[in-house]
């Protein structure tokens, strides 16, 4: 048990705690804050297992962009919406039961997968620096990234279309 392992454990538990709070919190802003906590914890995990780039992008893109957008929208929308205070839908207990089963199955599978996989390849310190990351990125995955950026572009266009459509609808 090195310091890194302890920290990984801590961040993982903190991430799961954030997920639980997301289920329990009443107000969307609290949920968003819990999600941000989860994401930051996961970023910590990523950084600790050596993937600095992913950790940074996790914070940069997820917290800095997606969650800012989310908080912005919650700020705009929640005012006066009393009905959102009903926390849970009708399928609360069945869903929790199904979730419990899923946890057992996935946890078991994960555990077994981890156990059955070949042991960790050693000496991969340099693998996750930004430079090899970028090299792999541009050598093997450039098409995927271009496609993803097309998806992003389409999403932006779609968002503009939705907003414009609603504007026209409003008159």
């Amino acid at each position, binding site marked *: 048990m090195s310091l890194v392992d302890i920290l990984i454990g801590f961040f993982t538990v903190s991430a799961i705690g954030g997920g639980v709070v997301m289920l329990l919190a009443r*107000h969307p*802003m*609290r949920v968003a*804050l819990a999600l*941000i906590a989860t994401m*930051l914890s996961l970023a910590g995990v990523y950084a600790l297992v050596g993937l*600095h*780039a992913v950790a*940074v*992008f996790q*914070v*940069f893109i997820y*917290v*800095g*962009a997606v*969650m*800012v957008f989310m*908080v*912005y929208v*919650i*700020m*705009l929308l929640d005012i006066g919406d009393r009905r959102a205070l009903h926390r849970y839908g009708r399928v609360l207990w069945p869903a929790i039961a199904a979730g419990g089963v899923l946890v057992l199955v996935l946890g078991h599978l994960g555990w077994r997968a981890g156990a059955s996989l070949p042991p960790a390849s050693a000496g991969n310190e340099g693998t996750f*620096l*930004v*430079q090899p990351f970028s090299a792999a990125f541009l050598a093997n995955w450039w098409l995927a990234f271009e496609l993803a950026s097309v998806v992003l572009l389409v999403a932006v266009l779609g968002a503009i279309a939705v907003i414009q459509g609603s504007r026209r609808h409003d008159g």
Partner: protein
Amino acid sequence: MIQDLVITLVYIGYAMGMLLTFGAILTWVERKQAALMSDRIGANRAYVRLPFTEVKIVWMGLFHGMADGLKLLLKEDFRPNTFDRFAYNLAVWLAFVPVLLVFAVVPFGGTLDPGQLIPPLAGWFEGRTYSMQIAPIDAGLLVVFAFAGISIIGAMLAGWASDNKFSLLGALRAGSQLLSYEVVLALTVLGLILIYGHVDLRAIVEWQSGTVLGFLPAWGIVVQPFAAILFLTASIAENKRMPFDLPDAESELITGYITEYSAMQQGMFMLGEFIEIAIIGALFTTLFLGGYNLPWLTDAGFLLPGGELIALPHALVVVLQLLTFLAKMALVCSFQILVRWSLPRFRWDQLLRFAWTWLLPLALLNLAVTALAVWAIG
């Protein structure tokens, strides 16, 4: 291992102390510089009296920052009866802490050899050297942007949790302004990354220690002057200061998202703003002014163009590098204050239009030209 920890703790202590001091002193500098700019004298009243004497130490009003801090600490913490007390209290820290964290990846000096610095500990350090940087992460520049993103959430959360329409408006403005200018900032920095070929701030600084065209220091401001202007503009906007202080425009929104904060919580927003000035100074120094580099100064001493070496002791080199960094940083801070007291505030629509229709295309243009140039030369 334990030596690394000790060194890191020393660095953290230095960085925290330096930033907080900068933040406190900048409150005074801002007033004094504004006074000098407008032919006034400025803050000159606060003093410390030596105990048991009538000797008053005024020091040109340097203690005004202290007096402010004391006042903010002792004031009644007047809080609104908001529905989300948790978010209200969290927002301060979300806005304050990420700003401090940014400094973790900034190299504020060259290489430190603690064994050479303190000979009695030479045995313990076993000849290890450390670069003067809290967290030597190779993704340094990305970390900067990552943490900048978190502080947006702090500002927005503050405005939302204050339960006040002025605060909410301020928060909405803060959100959209910070997002817009962060895009500009990132695109500007992309050009630098193209040239430097690194996102590691230490590598960037080391790249700048050379020269271009034989005589000019290879500082970012020389190779990317246009990006320097864009970067400074966008980062002043990120800091929500004049002429981009729309989120807390006093004449329109009282103080925007800070309106409902009082006492030290308000003080932390203000201190955060001033520390951010220092951070912007540090980043600008690192990216464009060659960081801790003094022309011809190497870790061994001054290496004059003729190839002559003036050897300097290690301690002196370290101190020189630290001072160089601080001096450059102070210069940039002073320039930001100059801008703040010179330019009038934008209108809100002008602010966003400026970001999206001026700065963004310019940043893209800069990026394209840089890419072409790098491709042509490289």
